[in-house]
C-alpha cells in the first residue's frame, strides 16, 4: 500500500533551506575575505620585501660604484703625477742630454716692429 506523500510543512522547508543557505554564504564570504586579506598581506609583504631588497641591492651597488669612482679618482691623480713627472723640465733636459742633444748656442729672433712697420 502506497503511502501518500505527505507534504512537508511549507514553513519547515523554507526555514530549513534559508538557514542552510545563509550559513554557507557567510562562511564562503568570510573565507573569501580572509583569503583575500591573506593574499593582500602576502602581496604587500612580497612587495615590501622586493622593494627592500631592491633598495638594499641599490645601496650595495651605490657603494660599489662609489668604490669604483674613488679608485678611478685615485688612478687619475696618479696619472696626473706621472704626467707632471714626465713633463718636468729637469727630466726632459736629462733625457735630451742622454740622447746627445745640446743646447742651442744662440736663438735668432725676428723683430716684430720693423715687419709691422713695413706693412
Amino acid at each position, binding site marked *: 500500500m502506497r503511502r501518500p506523500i505527505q507534504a512537508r510543512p511549507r514553513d519547515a522547508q523554507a526555514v530549513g533551506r534559508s538557514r542552510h543557505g545563509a550559513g554557507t554564504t557567510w562562511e564562503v564570504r568570510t573565507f573569501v575575505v580572509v583569503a583575500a586579506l591573506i593574499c593582500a598581506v602576502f602581496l604587500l609583504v612580497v612587495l615590501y620585501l622586493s622593494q627592500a631588497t631592491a633598495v638594499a641591492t641599490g645601496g650595495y651597488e651605490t657603494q660599489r660604484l662609489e668604490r669604483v669612482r674613488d679608485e678611478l679618482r685615485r688612478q687619475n691623480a696618479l696619472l696626473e*703625477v706621472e704626467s707632471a713627472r714626465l713633463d718636468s723640465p729637469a727630466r726632459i733636459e736629462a733625457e735630451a742630454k742622454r740622447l746627445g742633444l745640446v743646447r742651442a748656442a744662440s736663438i735668432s729672433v725676428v723683430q716684430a716692429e720693423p715687419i709691422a712697420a713695413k706693412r
Partner: protein
Amino acid sequence: MTEGISPTRLRVLFALFATATLLLSLRVGYWQTIGRAALLEGATDQLRSELVLEAQRGVIRDRSGRVLATTVDLRSLYAIPKRIPEQDRPAAAAKLAPLLATPAPTILAALNSGAEWLYLKRRLPELVARAVEALAIPGLGFEPEPKRLYPNDALAAQVLGFVNDDGLGQYGVEGMYDKILRGLPGRLTVERDPKDRELAVGLRTAVPPRNGADLVLTIDLEVQTAAERVLRAAIEKEKAPSGSIIVLDPRDGAILALASWPTFDPARVAVADPEALRNRAVSWTFEPGSTMKAVTIAAGIDKHVVTPATTYEDKGCTVIGGRRLCNAQGKSYGTTSVTQILERSANAGAVFVASRLGQDPLYQYLRAFGFGVATGVDLVAEATGAVRPLAEWYPVDVGTVAYGQGIAVTPLQLAMAYAAIANGGTLYKPYVVAATRDADGEHRTAPTVVRSPITADTADMLRTMLTSTVDKGISHGASLAGYSVAGKTGTAQIPSADGRYVDDAYISSFAGFAPANDPRFVAVVVIERPQSKLLGTITAMSAFHDLAIDVLRNARIQPDRP
C-alpha cells in the same frame, strides 16, 4: 602532600620570591627609565661606527698650473699572518722580497712574529702594489694611505718644504700655508652589520670634509730648473759648500725661482742633512761686499750729495774714523767718477760717497731699502739680517758699510733692493704664493708696495751706471749678446766667531737685472767659500749669464740691442 610543609616556610619562600620579583622589577624599571640612555648608547655603539673623513690636502702648482706637490692615496700592504699557512710563508716571503726591496728573512720574521695584523710595507708605488696584488697571496691586503708626492723630485725643495708623517707641513709654503692646505676633516656615521659591513639601507649621516685650498705659486718651473742647474754647476766648479740663487720680477716682487744648495728631496726628508733644509736665500745672512756699493751710491745721488759725474781723487786708500780703508789689492785709480766707482768697484770711492752722505742718511737709506728687517716674504724662518742701530756705529762703520762690510743681509733682501733700483724706485714685498684656490674660487695675491726708497730719476741713473759696470767695468762677465744687462759683483769676507775675518775665505756674489732698459727679472747669485777665492765672482757672473739666457728665452723677451 602539603600538609608536611610548614606555613612559615611557605611564607619565607613567598617573601623571597616577592623580594626577588620586586628587585627585578625595580631593575627593569631602572633600565627602562634612568638607564635607558646608557643602554641605547651601548646598543648604538655596537651598530654604528663613526669615521673621520680626511680632507684632501691642497695641490701646489707653479705659475703656469703645473703640479709641484700633490697628495695621492697610495696602497699600504698589510698581512694577517694566521691566514697564511705556515708552510707557505717562506715561499710568500721569497716572492715578496724583490718587490718590496726587503730581505726575505725580514718578511718571514714579520709573518712569524705572532702579530695578528701588521704592515709589511707602507705607501707602495702603484706598480709595485699591482705586482704584489698579482701574486694573490692569501692573508695579504691593501689599505689606502695618503702620500704627498713631488713630481719634480728635489726641485724647489726649499720653497715647497715637506709634509711630515703626521700630515703637517714643515718649512717652505707647506709649513707657511699648512692650515689652509690641510683643510678641515669631515665625519661619517654609518650602521654596520655583525661582519662590519656597511648596511646599505642603514643610517648614513655625513659631514663632508672641506678640502684644503690649492696654491698657485709665483715660481716658474722653467726658471727654477735653470736656476738650480746653474747653481749646481757653479757649486761643483767652485767645490763650494753652499750657495743660492734668487730670481724675481722687479715689477711686483713675485719670486720666479729660488734655489738653495745644499738641497734635499722632500719625499725623503728622513735622510736629508739638516743644513739642507735651510733656505739659504731667505734664512741665511752674509756680508754682501761690493754689491752694496750700488745702494750707497743710490743714497748719495738721491740725497743730491753726488751725481754720476762727480769725481774724486782715488789714491787707493782713504782714512776714516782713524782707520785706513783700501781698494782691493790696494789699487789706485786717480781721478774717478761716481760711475767709475761701480765700474772699478773702488772701496775708497764708496767711502767717498758715504762720507759726503753722512752716517745718519746712510743708515736711513739702508733701512729704507729694507735691510735689517724681514721682507715679509711668505716663507717660514726668514732672517732679518743685521744693520746695527746707529748708536752702535763706530766712525769707521760709515766707510765699511758703504762697501758692504759690517752689515749682514739675506740674498732676498739684496734682490729686493736691486729690484727697487730696476723698477724705478719702488720697494715691493716679495711673495711666492700668487693665488689660493678653494671652493669659493680663486683669491689672487695683490703686489704690496712697501715704500719708495729712491726717486725714479735716481733709479734711472743707477740703472745706467750699473749697465755701464757690465758693459765697461768689472762685471763684464755678466754681459749678454743682444741684451743690456745691469749688475754688480760682490766679494765679501766671512766674519769669524772672534770678531775678525776668516783668512782667505770669501763669499762671491753677483746682483743684476736684464734687460737694463726695461728690467724683467732681477737675479742674485751667491756662492759661499768658492775654491777660486777672489775669482769666485767670475763664476757668479757666469752663473748669472747662463741663467739670464734661459730666463729671457723662456719669457720670450726680445733683444734690446743689435
